[in-house]
């Protein structure tokens, strides 16, 4: 059968006779990789551009139309030692990139205006105490207005828009007091300038915008970086399917290019990427990703298969019933939507702070105005003092208090192998006091391992591994990997559903079902792990059995102990059979567990815990976990998780160890502590500054110094989130 790969779905035209493709590349870490990839790809004739983006771990490639196949780039990268896959920009990511550019432009404009207005303000401040002529002062004020007004109109857009949205939804957020403060300060300054007054606050207003934009840009960059990483993961995991393009010809195409009614081939060891019905063939399939059940299910003509199932033994032809986006079980998607809606009601710390803050500040300003009028001051002076109160209390430090900590903490988590999927995840994770683990793929490793490798003579094991290379069966793949086998045995024959055999030095060797190798006696005699798949290996009369199963993550026990030490409740909710769950619970010392749980049951359990006031952290990987991940207060998935769960989880952790779970909880708790501290610092500064403002002796100089002082203090305090505890377990 002829197989081709077809990635034309991802190629776009970049200009006259030039084609463009973006590839996500795994394992690019340093300048060396960057140079190696760029040189390696540029060496291909007709390639006009090969540029690595180290931040996003991507390569942009352009070449002359009609000469090259994108496959050749992927093969070239594979030769260089990098796994690559075409990358398609999601609309969500494109929006983030556009937004982050817009914020940077705003910051540039605001910073330019601040510097120039300051240049004009400092002569006025010093001139006010020496011999500046009123005409010169007015000239400088008008110049400041000329710079500050258009700059604020442009750079203030993110705040004005957000404030307007909040007000039209009849709520309030941090941007409402910011917008009011900036507008009033500018308006009053113009009026004061017209009246040839001594003080104008153009510098304070524009500086406030600059500092706040720094916070926004940091926040946005964090989100953009997470999106980029998540997008790459999706691309690298992107399933392809072998689609029949002729009666005997198949083409490997991305799932996005498959439509209902197409027929795809599902070979042993492949994960199904579509929903469909088997029309030909017979095999066992592993649906643990969908149901959590680790026992294999038999699939034959007429059986429905779902995206995420792994084909184990035979080859299947599947007619696609739903493709790409529609593949997910309707039930799971529905549960997911409900759960996500419930969660969006969570109110972020910043919004809670501003809800308290705005009324207090506005009331204080109003009382100041009225107080001065009652005390006999003129309306003009009273209003000027009231606006000064608003300017000095403008939540500059408050606006920086949270994004700066979040940026620093997410950087620290990134180093510990944890990626943030949502902005408020840190706050929610810090509150978690009950952890629910899924078993399959979360507490256990997603790949199979040979459990009794130590009991097998090394030379026999090596031979078994080499023989295993000739089989597609996932168990055989695990044996081959455990044995570190590299060179397959020539002339090995695979018997479908039985095993592999070959002849070496005149002796027949076999690997497969115990009956295939004549090793039933060994299986009957030994006490065996109920969860493991047993395969046998025979070389002439010498026979061994190998027990293959998913092992626990190497540090699972230590992590559970560390969580217990942090006073966190722990339980297992698994869709797997009871004996398997009991075994894992015992090994880890977890007292509370439930087996054979459906997705709906998982949600019910989480709701029950919520009723009792617990804040649940759900850690799971399977498609069956996705709704409960969304229902929990906060959720986490390993990188090996099914697409859907990864997209739903608030945090994603990398690698084999489970330690990032504890590391993330620790950094989140520390970060929340720092956020609260920052809010108190900002409030403390206001408590000191407000009496000064009410008394009416605030000059623009005092306002500017106080504002930058408190902002710098808050930023420095945030940096402490960087050295989160190294001792994880």
């Amino acid at each position, binding site marked *: 059968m002829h197989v081709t790969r077809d990635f034309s779905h991802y190629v776009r035209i970049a200009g006259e006779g030039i084609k463009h493709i973006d590839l996500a590349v795994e394992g690019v870490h340093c300048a060396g990789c960057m140079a190696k990839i760029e040189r390696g790809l540029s060496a291909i004739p007709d390639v006009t551009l090969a540029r690595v*983006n180290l931040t996003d771990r991507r390569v942009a490639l352009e070449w002359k139309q009609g000469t090259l196949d994108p496959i050749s780039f992927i093969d070239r990268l594979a030769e260089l030692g990098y796994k690559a896959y075409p990358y398609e920009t999601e609309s969500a990511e494109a929006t983030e990139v556009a937004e982050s550019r817009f914020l*940077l432009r705003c910051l*540039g404009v605001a910073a*330019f205006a601040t*510097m*120039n207005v300051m240049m004009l303000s400092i002569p006025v401040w010093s001139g006010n105490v020496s011999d500046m002529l009123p005409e010169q002062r007015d000239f400088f004020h008008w110049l400041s207005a000329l710079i500050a007004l258009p700059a604020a109109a442009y750079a203030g857009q993110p705040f004005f828009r957000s404030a307007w949205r909040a007000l039209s939804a009849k709520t309030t957020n941090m941007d409402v007091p910011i917008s009011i403060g900036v507008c009033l300060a500018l308006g009053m300054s113009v009026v004061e300038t017209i009246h040839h007054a001594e003080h104008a606050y153009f510098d304070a207003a524009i500086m406030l915008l600059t500092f706040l934009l720094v916070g926004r840009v940091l926040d946005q960059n964090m989100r953009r970086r997470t999106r980029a990483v998540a997008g790459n993961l999706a691309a690298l995991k992107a399933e392809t399917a072998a689609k029949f393009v002729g009666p005997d010809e198949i083409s490997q195409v991305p799932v996005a290019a498959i439509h209902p009614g197409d027929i795809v081939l599902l070979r042993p060891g492949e994960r199904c990427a579509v929903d469909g019905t088997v029309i030909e063939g017979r095999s066992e399939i592993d649906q643990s990703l969908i149901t959590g059940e680790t026992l294999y299910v038999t699939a034959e003509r007429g059986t429905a298969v779902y995206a995420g199932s792994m084909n184990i033994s035979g080859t299947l032809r599947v007619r696609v019933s739903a493709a790409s986006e529609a593949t997910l079980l309707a039930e799971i998607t529905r549960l997911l939507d409900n759960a996500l809606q419930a969660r969006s009601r969570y109110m972020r710390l910043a919004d809670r702070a501003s809800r308290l803050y705005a009324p207090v500040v506005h009331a204080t300003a109003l009382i100041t105005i009225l107080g001065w009028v009652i005390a006999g001051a003129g309306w003009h002076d009273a209003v000027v003092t009231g606006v000064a109160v608003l300017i000095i209390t403008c939540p500059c430090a408050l606006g920086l208090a949270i994004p700066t900590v979040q940026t620093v903490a997410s950087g620290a988590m990134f180093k510990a192998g944890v990626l943030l999927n949502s902005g408020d995840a840190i706050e929610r994770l810090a509150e978690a006091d009950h952890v629910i683990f899924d078993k399959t793929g979360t507490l256990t490793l997603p790949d199979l391992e040979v459990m009794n490798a130590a009991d097998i003579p090394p030379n026999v094991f090596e031979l078994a591994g080499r023989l295993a290379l000739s089989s597609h069966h996932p168990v055989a793949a695990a044996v081959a990997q455990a044995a570190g086998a590299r060179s397959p045995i020539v002339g090995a024959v695979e018997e479908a559903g039985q095993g592999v055999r070959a002849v070496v030095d005149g002796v027949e060797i076999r690997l497969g079902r115990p009956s295939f190798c004549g090793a039933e006696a060994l299986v009957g005699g030994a006490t065996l792990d109920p969860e493991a798949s047993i395969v046998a290996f025979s070389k002439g009369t010498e026979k061994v059995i190998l027990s293959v199963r998913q092992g626990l993550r190497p540090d699972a026990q230590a992590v559970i102990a560390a969580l217990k030490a942090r006073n966190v409740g722990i339980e297992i909710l698994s869709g797997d059979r009871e004996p398997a769950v009991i075994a894992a619970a015992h090994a880890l010392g977890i007292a509370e567990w439930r087996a054979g749980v459906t997705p709906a049951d998982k949600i019910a359990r989480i709701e029950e815990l919520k009723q009792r006031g617990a804040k649940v952290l759900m850690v799971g990987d399977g498609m069956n976990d996705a709704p409960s991940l969304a229902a929990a207060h906060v959720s986490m998935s390993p990188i090996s998780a099914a697409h859907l769960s990864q997209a739903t989880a608030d945090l994603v952790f990398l690698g084999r160890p489970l330690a990032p779970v504890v590391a993330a909880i620790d950094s989140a708790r520390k970060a929340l502590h720092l956020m609260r501290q920052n809010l108190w610092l900002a409030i403390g500064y206001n408590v000191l500054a407000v009496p000064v403002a009410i008394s009416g002796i605030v000059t623009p100089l005092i306002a500017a110094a106080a504002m930058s002082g408190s902002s710098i203090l808050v930023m420095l305090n945030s940096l402490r989130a960087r050295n989160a505890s190294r001792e994880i377990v």
Partner: protein
Amino acid sequence: MEILVILVPLALMLGLAGLFAFLWSLRSGQYDDLDGAAWRAIADDEPPQDAPAKR
């Protein structure tokens, strides 16, 4: 004080020049890959390709 007539516009022109330089660098994608740019500055130059061997 007549010097202000020259100095103030001059200062503003310099500021604007900086702003436009920033906007230009943003548009030309110089902030898209901050990590990579840091390394590129110290990377070795590409060896000249197809250059005739010297002696």
